């Protein structure tokens, strides 16, 4: 292993390889590069700064200890966000257990409320700048339950298929579809409401 490497200029793949050889400096560079993305993903799911920070830290520790299991099928950042999502799911389940609820059942028995919502006919996000749109989506995500937000984050931000989400959330594909459907309909309604508020 050369000592003259410029870590800040090295590719992720090289840093990963060096990290696998227990080069902590290489891993520090990877953490520095991707820590914001990991934190943002944890925050998207948990909606809590302290929890997002703790999960980020735990994810990086876990990442280091599991590096041998990373074979480069996905990018390192994608692999790390998967670890992060799993940690978020663990914490959400733990919190639900503490509240004597089940994440598998949460909000699934709403009696088809989502089916009775009026369709939002005008696109509430039309004409918004990307940053403004992201802020609106962030506000709307805040209003969703953990299970609905989790389904959205995994499908839209992590690009996971129904089957993969079902596996990770430990529920059926039908439940995933139902959660996504409700979450999207509620988001459309919330975004329309935020748009109207801005227009007043």
């Amino acid at each position, binding site marked *: 292993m050369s000592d003259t490497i410029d870590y800040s200029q090295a590719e992720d793949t090289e840093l990963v390889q060096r990290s696998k050889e227990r080069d902590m400096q290489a891993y520090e560079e990877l953490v520095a590069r991707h820590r914001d993305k990991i934190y943002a993903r944890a925050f998207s799911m948990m909606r809590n700064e302290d929890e997002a920070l703790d999960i980020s830290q735990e994810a990086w520790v876990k990442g280091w*200890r599991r590096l041998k299991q990373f074979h480069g099928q996905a990018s390192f950042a994608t692999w790390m966000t998967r670890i992060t999502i799993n940690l978020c799911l663990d914490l959400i389940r733990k919190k639900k257990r503490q509240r004597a609820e089940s994440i598998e059942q949460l909000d699934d028995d709403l009696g088809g409320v989502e089916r009775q919502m009026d369709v939002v006919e005008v696109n509430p996000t039309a004409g918004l700048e990307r940053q403004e749109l992201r802020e609106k989506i962030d506000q709307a995500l805040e209003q969703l339950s953990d299970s609905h937000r989790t389904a959205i984050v995994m499908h839209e931000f992590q690009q996971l298929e129904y089957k993969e989400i079902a596996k990770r959330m430990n529920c059926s594909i039908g439940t995933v579809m139902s959660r996504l459907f409700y979450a999207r309909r509620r988001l459309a309604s919330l975004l329309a409401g935020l748009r109207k508020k801005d227009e007043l």
Partner: protein
Amino acid sequence: MKLETQLSIQALIDGELSDAKRREVERLLAADAGAKALHAELANTVGALRDGELARELPESREFFWSKVADEIEAAERSEARSVRSPGAKAWWTRLLAPLGAAAALVVAFTVFQSGGPQGGPHVVRPGVETVADTELELPNSVTLHLFQEDATVIWVDTTADLN
């Protein structure tokens, strides 16, 4: 509209339908205004969410955050190293216990055998039973026991032995 139909419209947008089912849902969209409106709403939401995650900065400096991660990694590795070492040390002790136990048992058995019972036979001492003395009453082929718990003395005479 049935929930199943609504979920099929969503699955069309998500690319999760078989070809046959996709064609069926597309025919429905062409014929049903309600289905078409729902499809538009879902598609708009999916479109907005694409690349819709708000970027956030981790609210700690690079050095401080890394120091916490590095400390945790070192603590985890120390703990792992201990747990790897421990079973080995335990096995070392365990490996010694069996032969030592066997050797101790042999020594005890040999000692008991050597001390002899009546006519040199085995002399078994049980808990709560203490041998006061062989032939304390000067009876041949006898053993005198004092039972401390019962505060009693028992004299065992081997009647099968030759008293002469």
